[in-house]
């Protein structure tokens, strides 16, 4: 855990991939990315059908998987220069992740789930200040009712509420990059709008970049840039 913590420089892009090749061991499923960039503060929607290698791409960006070839730079840091422990720490400090669903530990409270975002990121925890307050404030900003509900197991929350708690966990402590994997696909139309409104308002105040993956074309208008997976990724099934 005591891995040195590289300081990202502010002028470099949030995400920069070039010549990346990756293959899942055993399955033979491969993806290749020639070039892909997300600028600082930019909100990018990656559109494409499921099974198109989107989740694999997110795993590479988050430093969970390492490419066989090519370079992945996040906030100016070349992930290949980091050990796996350092990559874990880097993800904890600089990237907030939101999943499609089942984002929360069902037995932990909403507040604990939010604070979990700081458990492995002392830097973010420092920035968040008193994390109890920070978590509470964020949940209020994300429109989660105050009171007992925040202290009860998260399994009792509605899907919309759960996604907002997940967003709060991704946002707490102000990471520079938010990665979201179909965060709205489990929500109905009005909940989707509300979720994005609240998320974008927080991104504005943080100045953070967003890379969101979805198959839902209707969301496109709200983003700075829309990229289709077919334009970025080449996938190859087992030979």
């Amino acid at each position, binding site marked *: 855990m005591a891995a040195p913590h590289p300081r990202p420089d502010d002028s470099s892009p949030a995400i920069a991939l070039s010549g990346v090749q990756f293959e899942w061991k055993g399955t033979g499923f491969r993806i290749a990315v020639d070039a892909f960039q997300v600028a600082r503060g930019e909100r990018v929607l990656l559109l494409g059908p499921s099974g198109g290698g989107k989740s694999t791409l997110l*795993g590479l960006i*988050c430093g969970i998987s390492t490419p066989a070839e090519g370079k992945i730079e996040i906030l100016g840091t070349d992930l290949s220069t980091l050990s796996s422990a350092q990559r874990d720490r880097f*993800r904890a400090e600089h990237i907030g992740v939101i999943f499609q669903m089942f984002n929360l*530990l069902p037995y932990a409270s909403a507040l604990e789930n939010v604070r*979990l975002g700081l*458990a492995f990121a002392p830097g973010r925890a420092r920035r968040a200040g008193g994390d109890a307050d920070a978590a509470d404030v964020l949940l209020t900003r994300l429109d989660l009712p105050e009171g007992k509900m925040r202290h009860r197991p998260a399994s009792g929350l509605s899907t919309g509420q759960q996604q907002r708690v997940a967003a709060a966990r991704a946002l707490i402590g102000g990471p520079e990059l938010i990665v979201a994997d179909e965060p709205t696909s489990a929500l109905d139309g009005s909940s989707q709008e509300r979720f994005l409104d609240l998320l974008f308002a927080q991104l504005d105040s943080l100045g953070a970049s967003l890379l969101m993956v979805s198959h839902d074309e209707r969301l496109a208008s709200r983003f700075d840039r829309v990229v289709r997976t077919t334009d970025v990724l080449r996938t190859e099934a087992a030979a």
Partner: protein
Amino acid sequence: MILLRLTGRSIANRWATALLTVLALAVSIALFLGVERVRTGARTSFGSTISGTDLIVGARSGGVQLMLYSVFRIGNATNNMTWESYRDIAGQPEVAWTVPLSLGDSHRGFRVLGTTEAYFEHYRFRGGQKLTMRAGEPFSDLFDATLGADVAETLGYKVGDPIVVAHGLGAIGFTRHEDMPFRVSGILEKTGTPVDRTVHVSLAAIEAIHVDWQSGARIPGQSTGADAVRQMDLTPKSITAALVGVTSKLKTFKLQRFINEYPEEPLLAVLPGVALQELWSLIGVAETALAGVSAMVVLTAVIGMMAAILSSLAERRREMAILRSVGAGPGTIALLTVLEAALLSLAGAVAGTALFLTGLAVAGPLADQAFGLYLPFTLPTAREAAILGIFVLAGIVAGLFPALRAYRISLADGMTIRQ
């Protein structure tokens, strides 16, 4: 720390499995501690029953058998030794003191021991402690009886109460020596030895209650009154065994050889320590088997815990993916799994100790009454604490295997949420 708390919550979330796992661990460790306690308890209990006696003398049989029936009141003598032989041995120059023991009668399930005042003088238990009176005096009259602590407590006797001694050893003596009423002259302090369950009378008293009896049956039509009995010669014809003290330890073996080669009748003299050793080597096999079985039960419970944790990993892949997404490394995920095993075995150890102590508090007095096994209620000994420590350690080691699996799963799944 949030991770420790979350592990606790995660376990609580799977409380039914966790509870059963802890229960299995607790029962197994309680069993193990119980077996250990009985094992060591039996040894100290037996070892502390006789002290300060150099030789036990009786009719020729086995050394262990002689010790068991004379000192522990377990089983019966096959033969007696004659009073003449006893007097002869007592008169040997090497002999410092002797205590004759005459067994074979009972009082409401408790054995009656005929002996002399020398018994109160020379019998020692638990590292040389002497018998002391809780109330009254040792017997002095022909019809006096001195009771062990348990006898008095169980039957509710006080000093001065009359008691009736029965022939034979049944709890309900069907042949009672009712014409010879005894009087309680005194009650001994609790010793934690078979003395507590013994009624002590004089050798002459044993003769007296058998005056009208022959070959274990009442002589028809004959009844001698208590006063008439007092006029009779009540020197015993035989005794069951005798405890002997020598003037110098060096002379023990010389005296033992003399007794074992006694020409008048076949006798046996054993050193209590040697006989105890012989006893341990006899029951050592059973002890080891018992300890082995209880160790296997512990092992089974630990394997059960391993299986429970392992099967929980599948349903916890979501948890692992979430932890990975917030920056937990696969090593941390593995650590949490080990932590879970540690918490479960710790809970098992604590619950098991509680179960063991409860069992000891409940069954301890029963074991004392039923088997003369003195198991005092004490907190876990250093040895037992060490066993508990090893147990928790074994639990942690057992957690390493599921931890390795959790490590592999979290490496392969990464942040992919699988249900």
